[in-house]
């Protein structure tokens, strides 16, 4: 069973290597789908094993507990949806001359490498391996962000790689400090001092002072990668300039992986310094993110940049949930990770469609989307409503849970600010989406002709979104509850 | 021949430094010439220049008064007083014991040097010439950055010795020979930057040029002539060797603790060797770099400031 943990990241790697030698476009998509499906199946098996047996551990390098399962599920689902969506998207891109055929192997291989590094990140038990994998995600995704090689793409890629690398270095420093604390508590022995399971078990024995400094470094460092304000400057650029499927993965999965790192250290810090310290920091960063993102969302003209700032806001909400803490808050945070990942990927798919159809990201130029592409337009409205936090969609549920947790914890000021921001964003988002969806499109815009694959992918995600908005299936509920317990250290 | 009295020792040291100052300058000039593939003037050339100045008459601007005539002598006196304070030939016999010659401590030394600089600047202003004013203002700008750094460096060393008396510091350092600590590295670097600034060498100032627009020190000396100029030039040489001796006292001391004649000779030999090393350093720096433009000087000097600040911070934290 533990060998599964080793096989899981190797699947995308193997497929990626295979893709390097392929020329036929249809073979690419077939391999892509096969990789995503295989990963999905393995994730399901791992999930069942973990829920049945408690947790899986492999040689101190990998480990899978309920928290891991949450993230694995998200990555696998988004990987599958992206693989389906890319079929139609890539055809349009190559036909339009935006991506040359000879660069296709590089693209697909990089996406597989990207997925593999993300899988390693959430599977990592060793904090050093966690860091290495995160740096790996940065490198692979930076190459993808700058794939188009135009002026803006390169600027975004450069900002992305420089800012996130320095951010992750801070995370490494925090890791070193926690390692120092653990080694000291173990009496100088280094064995197992880098493993999360070991550290979490003895967290109450760690010196609180150094863990405090370490956690500050970690939240600033991995928070940069997650897109918490005020370290979020790279996010709108990178997520808007990247190819749309990559944007979906970046916003949907990658920033959540950075949050995974923060969550692990949150557990350690809770054990060592008591729940107040790390919770308060998370609360602060979360609130700042929500507040900072709001004006930029309102005044935005570029569709994908809007979505980027939206990701900043929602990452802030997750941090808020974690910061408020308690079983409800943490449960809400995990649920929001899933909900936002799914919804954001859906809307990025729609944005990719719009970009291909209208030739511009400027929301002022996108008009009459519903008439030009009925399916995509519908999904646009659905996605926008969901992002804004309307029932019966999933994000409404998780935001409501965060609210409930906040009120129960007595954090009235925080909740008040949060509510105000959410209302403002709701109005702004509906306004933008409405302007884009209704009305008459330009004559130059191609109508109809929607790729079946795109519709399938978007439909899949929309279905999940709707499902999670109506109810949380019992299996998922159990996983989330267990993840909450692991994080809170009970 | 037995022990020399402290007063004789102090006066002798003062005379020694004043006499050796031009020699050090001559050595540096010769080294620079050699590095630049020239033959260069002889080592004793500065002495010849000084005696030439003594023979000449004085010409003074109409607007300058008796104060202007008094400035060179005052500057020379201040610098000689500073020369008496630096421990070259003697130091405290034991750490914590009072200096055998309680003339003053490091702060007084810095004060004498600052007084000399101030008087030169004021004298230049008194003459009423444009170049004098410009040189004086530039020199004072440099001084603003140099004086505090000197203080910081002295403090960082004196924190260890527990006193600012230079003799006690030198004695203390001589005894604990091997403990050149981490902050001392930073303080030494700051001191070397200061050495360049105080002696008016490239990259801070060019001592060879007499172009008024490019120099700091020469601008202030422009209006003086004859014996007045002799005093100022001699003071400049003496200041150079005093600062070198200060560097040695703070960082590289090996100074005899007794005043026996044999020990004095040994100390003199060690002093000469260390001064030669510093002279080589100055010559190398002068031949390797170009003079910095004036507005870049604060950046250069603030490197020294930061080093000194860090040295003190590391000592105290």
């Amino acid at each position: 069973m533990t060998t599964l943990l080793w096989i899981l990241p190797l699947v995308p790697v193997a497929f990626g290597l295979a893709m390097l030698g392929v020329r036929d476009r249809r073979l690419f998509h077939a391999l892509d789908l096969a990789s995503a499906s295989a990963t999905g199946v393995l994730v399901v098996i791992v999930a069942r094993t973990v829920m049945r047996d408690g947790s899986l551990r492999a040689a101190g390098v990998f480990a899978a507990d309920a928290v891991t399962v949450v993230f694995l599920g998200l990555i696998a689902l988004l990987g599958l949806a992206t693989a389906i969506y890319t079929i139609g998207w890539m055809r349009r891109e190559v036909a339009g001359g935006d991506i040359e055929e000879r660069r296709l192997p590089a693209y697909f291989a990089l996406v597989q490498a990207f997925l593999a590094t993300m899988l390693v990140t959430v599977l990592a038990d060793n904090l050093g391996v966690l860091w290495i994998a995160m740096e790996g995600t940065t490198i692979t995704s930076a190459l993808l962000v700058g794939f188009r090689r135009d002026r803006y793409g390169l600027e975004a890629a450069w900002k992305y790689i420089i800012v996130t690398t320095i951010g992750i270095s801070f995370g490494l420093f925090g890791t070193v400090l926690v390692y120092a604390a653990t080694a000291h508590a173990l009496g100088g022995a280094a064995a197992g001092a880098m493993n999360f399971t070991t550290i979490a078990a003895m967290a109450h024995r760690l010196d609180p002072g150094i863990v405090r400094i370490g956690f500050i470094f970690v939240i600033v460092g991995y928070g940069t990668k997650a897109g918490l304000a005020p370290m979020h400057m790279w996010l709108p650029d990178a997520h808007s300039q990247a190819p749309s499927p990559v944007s979906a993965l970046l916003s949907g999965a990658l920033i959540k992986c950075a949050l995974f790192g923060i969550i692990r250290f949150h557990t350690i810090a809770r054990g060592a310094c008591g729940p107040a310290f790390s919770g308060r920091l998370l609360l602060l960063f979360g609130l700042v993110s929500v507040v900072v993102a709001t004006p930029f969302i309102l005044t935005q003209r570029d569709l994908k940049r809007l979505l980027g700032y939206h990701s900043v806001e929602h990452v802030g909400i997750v941090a808020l949930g974690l910061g408020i803490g308690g079983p409800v808050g943490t449960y809400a945070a995990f649920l929001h990770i899933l909900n936002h990942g799914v919804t954001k990927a859906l809307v990025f798919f729609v944005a990719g469609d719009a970009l291909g159809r209208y030739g511009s990201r400027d929301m002022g130029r996108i008009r009459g989307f519903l008439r030009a592409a009925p399916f995509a337009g519908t999904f646009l409205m659905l996605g926008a409503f969901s992002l804004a936090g309307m029932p019966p969609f999933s994000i409404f549920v998780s935001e409501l849970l965060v609210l409930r947790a906040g009120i129960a914890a007595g954090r009235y000021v925080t909740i008040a600010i949060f509510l105000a921001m959410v209302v403002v964003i709701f109005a702004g988002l509906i306004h933008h989406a409405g302007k884009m969806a209704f009305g008459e499109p330009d004559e130059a815009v191609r109508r109809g002709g929607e790729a079946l694959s795109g519709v399938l992918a978007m439909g899949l995600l929309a279905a999940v979104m709707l499902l999670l908005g109506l109810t949380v299936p019992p299996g998922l509920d159990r996983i989330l509850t267990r993840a909450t317990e692991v994080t809170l250290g009970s | 021949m037995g022990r020399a009295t402290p007063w004789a020792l102090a006066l002798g040291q003062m005379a020694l430094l004043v006499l050796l100052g031009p020699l050090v300058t001559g050595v540096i000039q010769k080294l620079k010439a050699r590095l630049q593939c020239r033959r260069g003037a002889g080592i004793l050339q500065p002495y010849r220049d000084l005696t030439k100045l003594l023979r000449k008459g004085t010409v003074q601007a109409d607007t300058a008064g008796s104060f202007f005539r008094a400035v060179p002598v005052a500057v020379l006196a201040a610098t000689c007083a500073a020369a008496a304070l630096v421990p070259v030939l003697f130091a405290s016999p034991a750490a914590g014991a009072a200096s055998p010659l309680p003339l003053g401590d490091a702060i007084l030394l810095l004060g004498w040097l600052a007084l000399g600089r101030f008087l030169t600047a004021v004298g230049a202003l008194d003459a009423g010439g444009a170049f004098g004013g410009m040189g004086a203002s530039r020199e004072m700008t440099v001084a603003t950055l140099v004086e505090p750094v000197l203080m910081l460096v002295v403090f960082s060393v004196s924190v260890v010795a527990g006193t600012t008396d230079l003799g006690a510091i030198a004695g203390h350092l001589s005894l604990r020979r091997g403990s050149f600590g981490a902050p001392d590295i930073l303080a030494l670097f700051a001191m070397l930057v200061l050495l360049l600034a105080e002696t008016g060498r490239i990259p801070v100032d060019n001592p060879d040029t007499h172009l008024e627009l490019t120099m700091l020190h020469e601008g202030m000396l422009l209006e003086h002539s004859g014996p007045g100029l002799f005093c100022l030039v001699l003071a400049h040489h003496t200041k150079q060797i005093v600062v070198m001796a200060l560097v040695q006292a703070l960082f590289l001391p090996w100074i005899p603790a007794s005043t026996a004649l044999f020990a004095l000779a040994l100390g003199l030999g060690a002093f000469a060797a260390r001064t030669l090393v510093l002279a080589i350093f100055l010559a190398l720096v002068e031949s390797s770099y170009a003079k910095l433009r004036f507005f870049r000087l604060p950046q250069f000097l603030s490197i020294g400031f930061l080093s000194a600040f860090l040295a003190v911070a590391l000592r105290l934290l």
Partner: protein
Amino acid sequence: MSPELATRLIDALGALLLFTMILILAAGQLYRAIYAVAAQSVLIALAGAVLGATTHNLDLWIVAGITLLVKAIALPWLLLRVIRRVGIRREIEPVVPITATLAIAGGIVVLAFHLSSSLGAVRQAITGNALPVGIALTLMGVLVMMSRREALTQMVGLFASENGIFFTAMAVSQGMPLIIEIGVVLDVILGALVMGVMVLRVRSSVDADIAELDRLRG
């Protein structure tokens, strides 16, 4: 090597590291900054050797050797090659004036030392003053990155920052596990390569300098 001697050597190396960091902060020309960061990496390698001799841990020696090869020789050489291809010589005027940068750096060092002096017994887990110097170097590396516009200087700041982290990591108890250190170094190399490629690509395809790319706003 006795622990006391090791502590004193680490302290001295820490002071020298701070000194090289000052040189990087105040460097007016790119190649001076690159030489300074190369010297810094040599010092880190020396620190690794000292700690390896103290703890008799072979891993530290290997890490020291790798640091020397990669961060002191290979990466600076890579940067110099990029400079030669792109043809930049002088640093563009930094965003923050150099004197202000140096003042902030002084504040950072004081902050780092103050922070680590507030720790308790766990302070002994890290040899000498490696922790405050590490914190100071990391933060000052970020200062370099934030106060400069030239892409290569930003990379130098990144390397300096990572040097600080390495310094602390090596001084913790018996050093971090070897696999992790190697993985970290590999990642650093890959990252540097990708960044170098990006700088060249910007120059070749857009014919501009990265510092001039600032259209994405708002």
